[in-house]
């Protein structure tokens, strides 16, 4: 099963995290989970996943800072980061992009929608020269 893409799910709200994990498994992904920013960094450096789904509002080290650190590190710089937030106010997507996120999805986001976004990012990562970011919507 090592050829299946590894997704690192970062979300402090366990119900959501487990729901997405369940569906991603069901959709054929390997899934690793993290409940806060520090855990997310540890997991990322340890596992080097194929894609990271990052909730931005995290206790302690938040999603923006975590993304910045991942993107600064040589080991994890190449991993696409899909930002996930329940904040729909203007400015959030720009902030996420500035921090280094490759995609942006607003909650509520149905599981199948998230899978579609991840597929789009992975396709982009395989062809880095034509990487496209996907704009999520409610």
């Amino acid at each position, binding site marked *: 099963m090592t050829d299946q893409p590894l997704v690192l799910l970062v979300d402090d*709200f366990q*119900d*959501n995290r487990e*729901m*997405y994990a*369940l*569906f991603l498994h*069901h959709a054929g992904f390997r899934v690793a989970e993290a409940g806060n920013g520090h855990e997310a960094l540890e997991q990322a450096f340890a596992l080097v996943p194929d894609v990271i789904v990052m909730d931005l509002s995290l206790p302690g080290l938040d999603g923006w800072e975590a993304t910045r650190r991942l993107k600064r590190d040589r080991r994890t710089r190449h991993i696409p980061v899909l930002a996930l937030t*329940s*904040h*729909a*106010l*203007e400015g959030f997507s720009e902030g996420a992009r500035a921090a280094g996120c490759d995609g942006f999805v607003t*909650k*509520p*986001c*149905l*599981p*199948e929608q998230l899978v579609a976004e991840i597929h789009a990012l992975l396709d982009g990562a395989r062809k880095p020269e034509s990487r496209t970011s996907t704009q999520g919507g*409610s």
Partner: protein
Amino acid sequence: MGKSVALRASSRTSGTELTAARLALVEFLLGCDDSTECAQRALDWLGSHTGVRQSLCLAPDADEMRLVAVAGCGLPSARISRFSVDLYQRDHPLVEALTSGEPREVSVNGYGGGGSGLPFAGRTAVLAIPLPSDRSESEDRRGLLLLSPASAEASREGHWVASVLGSKLARLGAERRLTAARDGRERDWAVLDSIVQAVPDPVLLTDAEGRMIVANARAEALLASSERESEGRRRAIALNNMLFSAALAGQALDRGEPARRELLLVDPADGSDLLFELLSTVIETAGEERRVVSVLRNVSDLRAATDELEQNYRKLHLAEAEIRAERDRLQLVIDAVADPILATDPSGAIVLMNDHAERLFTMRPGSAGDVGVRVQSNDAHFTAFVSNLLFADETVRYHGSLNLLEADTGDTLPFEAIAGKVLSAQGELVGVVTILHDQREALERQHLYDQLKRASEELEEKVRQATGELTRQNELLRRQALQLEHASALKSQFLANMSHEFRTPLNAILGYTSMLLQGVFGPLTDEQKKSLGRVDTSGRHLLTLINDILDISRIEAGKMPVHLAEFPVPELIAEVMAEVDPIISRTGLTVLKELALDLPPLNSDRAKVKQIVLNLLTNALKFTPAGSVTVAAAWEANRDRLLVAVADTGIGIAPEDQAKIFDDFSQADNSPTRAYGGAGLGLAISRRLASMLGGQIRVESALGKGSTFTLVLPRTLHER
């Protein structure tokens, strides 16, 4: 003496020679124009061819007062020149000889001027032969030939010479007189002409028809034209001639008094009117037709002066009438003044007063005795007052108070009196005019004024208090407004936070429901699917609500930016229709599009416009059980704005509810709504968005008939 010898010798001439000599004399006389020369030659001829030794030719002088010698022969020339005879000396033998016309012998002595007698030598008789004159000449114009000695030969040849010389001299005299007369006539004519020319008025002599015979330059300027003159001038002159002829024809032309009449001519120089007095006199000369002498006297100035005089006279009349009216008006004015007015002469006597003054200072007939006393008292007070001014040289105006009595009642009347001197132009005192002003009214007014002032002060105090209260209330309101603003900001922040907090659990609800429905956890029974479907629908409705609340709080917090872009409206409408297509197909309603052909692109925030149109269309679909929904777009060129109208044939909105529907959480119909939204926030948001885009949403509706919502937007929204 040699000459007398020669004369004597020649007296012996023969008959043939004599004839030749006569011929020679006649020939000479024919060629000579000088009477003295002719006379001298004739006397010389007598001396040569007859025995006449002394001879003299006498002729009347220029003024025919005297008979003087014009030539002599055989006589000392000094004596000849001195000799003369007064023609009025009728008894003188020479005068007698001349008058009788017959030759006679006269004696030498005892006659002639100065007692010297005839200038002949010796005592022989002298033959006096009168020179015959031309038939037409008067008898006075004759001369005498005096010959000595008076022989038969002398008589015979003397007669012949007298006849030849006489007719010659007569002819010469006639010629001289003719020349003199012609010269005289020419001189007279020149004088006459210069007189006529010198007359300052046009003068002319015409025939009875007015044709000019003689005229002075002034008359010619008016009535005679030449080819060289301008067309206008020639026409003016032709007109003048017509007018002049007509005037002459209209005159009763008789000899005697000159006829007068006015004649209006045109000045050929400038076309102005010239008014003349035409004086025409008929003159008749024997053998000629009637002639008329006309004098034109220019009376244009005279007429103007007369007119001016009349006008001045009229003006004078008007001025007099005005002065009269002015005087009457003055009396009216004085009477109309509510205050008594009096005029006094320098002695203090009242000369003029108005009605009001009369009531104080005069007694009306039939008044009671008290009235007379009061009037006298008033008069005394007034006189005393005026004397203040009359006896003060420097003062021109005097001001004081005067208490008089009302004549009828005896009430005291307080007056303010103002007296002013009336001075003539030379500064002499002509009189004093006094105006009495009733102080009762002023005192009353002062009283009223004081009351008013008190009331005003009270009012001011009240206003001051009210203003203070108002200021306090304003301050309170301002604080409340600040608090409200703060509260509103808190509310917006709270709503934003809350919507965030709502989303997170909702995400899990929708996610798990979706996974269950997709059979992630195994197949479901129909009952389970139906129940999960209701969970899903309710979850999605809740999400719509949360999104709407978020929109409103964003707009109110001013966190909803406007992104301007230019875009075509038809495309946007097509997109909206595509999004609601699932609902359309579910309801089975007819949806129509009516787009104007001249729609210009809209410059606005596309996403917001789309959100509004989507809201209006979903509302229309939601509230229309059957029938149709029409989306129309039009452009109002004159106001440069676009209209997007969504009309339905739905349930409609009662007039009293039409304003309410734009409020938050409001729906006219509170019955359960359909599946799509229905919190009643859509129109509230749409209205706010339209307002952000500089537009508005209008509604027209009738209950049971349907509604039309119209979005009105400026074609171009400028960044604020």
